[in-house]
């Protein structure tokens, strides 16, 4: 089974995010970029599928800050081939629609059996990748996928529908899946193996022309949510805060301490 995994970089949400001077994007100059965590799940599921039924895993990403590190890490984990798509501003915000169109342009020549990507990314303003890539290619798709099982020329997938309810469906291959969770937690690649991958792996670079993506939402302004007052902050040491929390619980009859 030939599997393509689409991965991307994303601003690290642990960091403080500032809005740029134009007010339409985050200020990218001082942000740390990390791999999108749902894409890590997609890669893990791809590697598990390969281990189960054989085949290849190709990982593709757009050129973005620190993406080489993510691609080498994928190789260290077991990806057979890593590809970087260029032809856009690597330091700007590439909208999901454009991102998907670029990936779809490349995929048309690849003939994979299945394409996996993370179910979402925290800046998917104009839609989730899997569905958009599928729409551009005319392939079936499913999102919020938690189980993938090959069955002949088809895939049986299980999707979460919310509240613990799941749906199982069968898709003709090739198909595009938005992975919510892999069958196991994403594996870890030690730095020594990533360094080794840097020596032995070549990142293929492919230039993609600017695709036509039709109408997309235009950002007028990006801003922190107005504070609604929020929480009453409990100040003091850990012991003092613990006293206050126990008092809150006691007032509601939830502890007798």
């Amino acid at each position, binding site marked *: 089974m030939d599997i393509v995994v689409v991965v991307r970089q994303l601003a690290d949400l642990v960091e403080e995010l500032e809005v740029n001077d134009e007010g339409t994007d985050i200020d990218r100059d001082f942000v740390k970029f990390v791999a999108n965590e749902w894409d890590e799940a997609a890669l893990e599921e791809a590697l598990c599928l390969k281990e189960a039924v054989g085949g290849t895993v190709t990982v593709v990403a757009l050129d973005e800050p620190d993406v080489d590190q993510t691609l080498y890490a994928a190789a260290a984990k077991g990806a057979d081939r890593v590809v970087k798509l260029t032809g856009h501003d690597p330091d700007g915000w590439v909208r999901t629609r454009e991102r998907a169109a670029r990936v779809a342009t490349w995929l048309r020549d690849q003939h994979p059996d299945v394409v996996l990507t993370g179910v979402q990314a925290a800046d998917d303003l104009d839609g989730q990748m899997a569905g958009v890539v599928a729409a551009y290619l005319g392939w079936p798709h499913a999102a919020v996928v938690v189980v993938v099982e090959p069955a002949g020329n088809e895939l049986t997938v299980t999707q979460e529908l919310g509240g613990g309810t799941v749906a*199982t469906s069968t898709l003709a291959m090739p198909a595009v899946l938005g992975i919510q969770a892999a069958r196991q937690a994403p594996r870890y690649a030690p730095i020594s193996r990533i360094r080794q991958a840097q020596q032995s792996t070549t990142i293929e670079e492919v230039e993609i022309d600017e695709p036509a993506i039709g109408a997309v939402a235009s950002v007028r302004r990006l801003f922190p949510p107005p504070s609604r007052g929020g929480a009453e902050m409990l100040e003091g040491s850990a012991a003092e805060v613990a006293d206050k929390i126990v008092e809150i619980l006691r007032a509601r009859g939830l502890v007798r301490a």
Partner: protein
Amino acid sequence: MSVAVLVVSERVVGEVPDVTFELLGKGREIASALGGELAIAVLGHQVGELPFGAADVAYVVDDPALANYAASAVEAALAAVVEAASPKVVLMSTGTVGLDLAASLAARLGAPMASYAVDVATEGDTVVATSQLYGGKLLAEVALEGSPAVVSVIPGSFAADAGRVGGAPRIETIAVSLDGAGARGEGVREPEASGVDITAADLLVSVGRGIGSKENLELVQELADALKVPLAASRPIIDQGWLPKPHQVGKSGKKVKPQVYLALGISGAPEHLEGMRSAGTIIACNTDPKAPIFEVAHYGTTVDLFDLVPELTERL
């Protein structure tokens, strides 16, 4: 009168969920502003007597291929409804069906789209959405020029009551061939009963990514044991395999409504907030003072949970 707003019913099994009525309520406002009808798309098989809420017209696709949910088949049916209704706005949720289909529908139509919306309004003929980005840390105000404007809304963003009020809408039955959709539904499974029922507890101790490792869970488990309450968790803990699925609070886990929800090391991603924001009192512990959880919490502390939890346990 032409259709201004099409709301996609999120029902897959059981009752029509609240979010559909939330969208109908907001849809009514937008339809009035745009001077058109409010429509609902109902896709399924043997759909029977469903409530259509505030809708003026219901577009029904009733087909055996939709008896069990399969994304591509539902999308093909939805595309046929959009073609028939020709709405200016399509409202879905960033939830069950919307997360699956909104983006592909919009791309297929070449239509503008906004995900994770928490508000939708109109300025003349332009639809303006406000969307949560970066896990709720920022909001984006976006203009959607072009028709239809597809907006997927975070469940819980609007009141449902206005959307429930309605009469008997006009029914439009749409026939569509779903043979070539490339997917077939095999079945829908409700959550399995388990020994843990986090929905029944008056008090929940809930833990998130801030716990760091599986080994550290022992610390919060001791607190939950001392309180004699179940331990709940946010998505990352479940995905790591540190706790089983029945412990999960959030969009794809359980919706909980305890008297008190003690959130430890949880940042407050929209998917998590969806599952716990109805708790009577929310107490949040997170070292990041800007964590979105503090916006919904009643009480908060930035004390490190590794310092706080042993102190709490000691007092019980």
